[in-house]
């Protein structure tokens, strides 16, 4: 693959993150470097304590490195203020969290509109249009006005993905996005992520589950705050096929 010609969305240069816990220094990231190109579907995989949550916080601009450089879509994040990072998150990043994090008693469309509420370039009409489009993209075009407590886990996670897509982010950051879902729904979610990948979205999927790596285009394996392995997956499994192969549930 002619990697050099592709656009670099994320570049980490020897990123270190240390935490001071009492008198001890916890080295969560001990120097991580990689580049992620536009249109990649990368899984960042590691056991708990491997530093993947810390890395996710770095990638999501929720935190800044102790040492090293992080460049997101050509912008250096390291020296940015809190407010600047909030602005950057709003424009460049779409978050999908493990436990959906939808606003209670709020409709699907209002939940999806949320990131655009903090973007003055959108007026109410444009916001609504973008939200409806994003919900259609995740297959919830018929559930716009459903409230978050009237939806299943899978539907809620779809809403969360739509919310992550609505601002047209440079990168989609998923944190254990299938962690709370049953096997069948998890595969449905993977099918969706693969569809988004095919449409050209850049996706980073953080997970402890090594199985998921088989459905992504690249896998970065973390251990003790360092990259253990960084492999390109040439034989991407189809989540749709895996879903079809699952035993049918009794009722549905």
């Amino acid at each position: 693959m002619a990697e050099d010609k592709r656009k670099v969305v994320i570049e980490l240069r020897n990123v270190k993150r240390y935490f001071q816990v009492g008198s001890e220094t916890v080295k969560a990231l001990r120097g991580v470097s990689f580049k992620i190109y536009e249109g990649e579907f990368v899984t960042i995989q590691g056991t708990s304590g491997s530093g993947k949550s810390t890395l996710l916080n770095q990638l999501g601009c929720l935190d800044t490195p102790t040492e090293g450089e992080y460049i997101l879509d050509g912008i250096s994040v390291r020296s940015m203020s809190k407010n600047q990072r909030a602005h950057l998150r709003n424009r460049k990043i779409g978050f999908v969290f493990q436990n959906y994090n939808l606003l209670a008693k709020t409709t699907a469309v209002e939940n999806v509109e949320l990131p655009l509420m903090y973007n003055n370039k959108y007026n109410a009409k444009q916001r609504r249009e973008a939200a409806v489009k994003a919900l259609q993209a995740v297959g919830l075009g018929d559930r716009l006005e459903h409230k978050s407590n009237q939806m299943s886990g899978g539907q809620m996670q779809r809403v969360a993905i739509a919310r992550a897509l609505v601002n047209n982010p440079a990168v989609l950051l998923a944190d254990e996005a299938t962690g709370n879902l049953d096997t069948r729904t998890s595969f449905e979610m993977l099918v969706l992520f693969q569809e988004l990948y095919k449409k050209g979205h850049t996706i980073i999927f953080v997970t402890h589950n090594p199985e998921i790596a088989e459905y992504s285009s690249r896998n970065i394996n973390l251990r003790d705050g360092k990259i253990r392995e960084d492999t390109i997956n040439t034989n991407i499994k189809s989540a749709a096929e895996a879903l079809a192969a699952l035993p049918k549930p009794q009722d549905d």
Partner: protein
Amino acid sequence: MNLLNLFKVSITAVASNKMRSFLSMLGIIIGVAAVIIMMSIGQGSKESIRKELSTMGTNLLTIRPGADMRGGVRQDPSAMQTLKMADYQRIMQEKKYVTKVSPEVTSAGQVIYGNNNTNSTIYGESPEYLDIKQWVVEEGDCFTEEDVKKAAKVAVVGKTIVTELFGEGADAIGKTIRFKSIPLRIVGVLKSKGYNSWGMDQDNVIIAPYSTVMKRIAAQTFFSSIVCSAITEDLSDTAIEELTQILRENHKLKGDAADDFTIRSQAEMMATMSSTMDTVTLILVVAAAFSLLVAGIGIMNIMLVSVTERTKEIGLRMAVGATGAVISLQFLIESVLISVTGGLLGILVGCSASGFLVPAFGMPSSVPAWSIYVSFLVCVCIGILFGYIPAQKAARMDPIEAIRHE
């Protein structure tokens, strides 16, 4: 995020916790209503006193012997004998801004008819006195200038005297009562004025020619005061100047010698009464305002709970791009929303209570318009003041921790 969106978010948040929002509003509602009711009672009392004083004549001027003196030693003014017949006559000749004049001599004592008796005050006056004090003769007539000249033993009496001595509604005209053993024939009965706001029975009064009271009852050659009415209320000050000049000349006071009399206008009396009422109102309002303070603390408490409860929401909002300032503003608007809604309801409750409930208890009430504006402003301030700390708490949250908060 623009302000309109923030408002929408805040309204949704307040509305989704109806019970809690209402309970924290309740303090504000009660506080504001209390303040408004207190103010309306204060204002109402003031207005009713003003009305009452004006029925005594707003253009009333009273000349008393002696001068006001706060420091130093001075003789008891009532013992001073500076107001004489000559003063009265001179005023009558030279007055321009004064219409009616009546010298006054009073004496308190027992009044007897048959085997009934009561205690009253006899006022020695000229016939013009009734006009000055806006008394109306209901039955019979007032005594005349002729009676004054002859120091006739006649009198006009108030309703209370009639009731006490002759029985309610009895015909008193032509009957002779005895005041300090001096017989007085009743020539007129005054229309009732009722009690004044100090609780004094204004109808317990006997009015006789000043000459009669001076010569036959009080046995004195000087007046205890002279009451006059200025042409209009506005000309009271000019009338006072005129009277001062006349009296100074008559008393041969030269240059910078102090006046040996004082002239008070009804306007001055009103000002004094008003300021007394203002003090009472202020005390009541301050007491009510403390309940607003407590209500504000209640709002702060509920907002702190709300911020903690919604840690995850705050984390999410920050993750998708809300800055600390925007988060802080959201919670600030929420607390202002609670306090202002409470305030508006409180104004409603306060106004309707002063409109219906207070009069039902027989108290005067009138809601001053400014008290509504002030209450509203105070509520906005309470919302900001007591919402600030919770809002700051929300704004300072770390998005990483907040979003993983369980």
